[in-house]
């Protein structure tokens, strides 16, 4: 039995990780846009990760968020100044996440990857998810649901929103 978590945006990755951790499925898969934008350490060690985007790189702002996270760990050294810097960094991270969203919307207008029928995602689902009884595909980003349903049509996989 396979359990597949689909989340193009990584914003609900903690929920996806918790969902997979609580499952006893023989095979656990995560399908996302950029694997590099996901914190794979949150997920069970036997999880397989697949990306549907042709580019393995996260958007520039995501790379900056990763850099800021390193800075944040460094400044949490116990000083009051560290706490203040920490707050500024968190504020910057939120702004960068908004920037990500804006970039995503801009991209959606010129990039078929953000087509709700998302053929790239459907292709990965077709190639990696076996059509066997008991396979469950859990959608963590509602914008992925149209594409996942188009994959699951005429298949035995159960699709759920979680």
């Amino acid at each position, binding site marked *: 039995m396979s359990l597949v978590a689909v989340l193009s945006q990584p914003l609900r990755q903690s929920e996806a990780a*918790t969902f997979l951790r609580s499952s006893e499925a023989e095979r656990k898969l995560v399908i996302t846009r950029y694997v590099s934008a996901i914190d794979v350490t949150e997920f069970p060690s036997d999880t397989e990760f697949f990306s549907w985007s042709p580019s393995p790189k996260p958007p520039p702002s995501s790379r900056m968020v990763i850099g800021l996270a390193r800075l944040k*760990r460094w400044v949490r050294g*116990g000083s009051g100044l560290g*706490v203040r810097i920490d707050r500024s960094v968190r504020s910057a991270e939120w702004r960068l996440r908004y920037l990500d*969203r804006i970039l995503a919307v801009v991209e959606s207008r010129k990039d078929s990857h953000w087509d709700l029928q998302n053929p790239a995602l459907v292709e990965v689902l077709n190639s990696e998810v076996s059509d066997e009884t008991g396979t469950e595909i859990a959608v963590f980003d*509602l*914008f992925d649901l149209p594409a996942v349903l188009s994959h699951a049509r005429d298949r035995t996989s*159960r699709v759920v*929103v*979680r």
Partner: protein
Amino acid sequence: MAGNANIDGHGREVKIQVVTPWYPDRYSAYSGIFVKKQVDALTSLGHDVDVEMPVIYPAPLGDVPDDVYQAMDSLAQIDPSAVFASENGAVKVPAPVPSRSGDLGRAAAYEKSLARKRFWMPIESGITHAHLGIPTGLALLRLGVERLVVTEHQSTLDRVFGQPGATDAYEEVVANSSAFICVSEHLKKQIASKIEPTVAESIEIVPNIVDLADIPFRVRKGGPLNHWLYIGTIASHKGVELLLKAFKAYRETDRSAVLTIVGEGPQRPWVERFAAGSGLSGSLRLVGSVAHQAVGHYLADAGVFVHLSPAETFGIATIEAIGAGLPVVSLRNGGAESAWGEFETSAGRLLPQDADADDVVDAIRYLEDHHSRLDPALGRRLVEERYSPSQVARSLVDIYERIG
């Protein structure tokens, strides 16, 4: 449903539909425990309670495309539980919320998703009890729900009122709901300062439940209060920095002092490094999150409860500590002085908002020197009388009956 249906005093069961964005589930075991306790208390009185839990699914800027809703519908048509999952007694209602929507945008998203959920999984008519004025209360009001009771708990109301249009929308909820409840006088005053005073007059107070079933009462002898306890989120907005600095100052005069912190949070790495840098590591016990049933053990073990959060709507943790017979040092954070009431002097010390580490240490020293002035048995009794599950549930049922 089974149960004692006579306790509402009218011999009939009340059908209650709770709608709350906070409820414990596998993703967040502590979120909305107070709502769950209300549900459990109402159920134990014989009432029929169902729970719907709107869940935010972050979406990109702009309108959510119809294709997303159509996909939800086509899946729900085959298998409603595939879209609206049940967990821990609550049915989850996915609500796609575009980025930067604000709380009014969340309300609109909740409204749309609750309408969709109720189409595929209808509810029985009865009382609807919403938790949070905005977004939940507003969403249900716009859905045309009648016999709507709204409870406000949120500690971030200033942020809500700061959004364009939110004050008018909030006033609309207070004015048009059948009953509007705050968990503390402090919160009521906060709302009353923002909306039309005549509308705010109708706001009622029903406190949060403080369940002492797993919290034993222990009589303490006088002596050094050198085992400090804090239970709560380890975060800057909870005053954790002041807590550590005050403990450091106290420990300079009592090297055997111990601070136990029960809870988790984003500031934990800071706490660990501050402790290491200040030579406190051996005196600091970071327990992490524990089940609520285990909290009584830590309360029984401690000498004083220190809670330095600058803002609380109610402050359940300090009330539980008082119920355990533990002296408490807290800031005047709004919720504390509302909830402690007249047992302020018999339960511990309330400090001004701008108290520093030395003020906290002085308060502990005062409690050590004036132990006989405390009356922990009175504290326990008052907590049981005012905040027990059955007492709070009866207050709610009185309201349901009145509007029913």
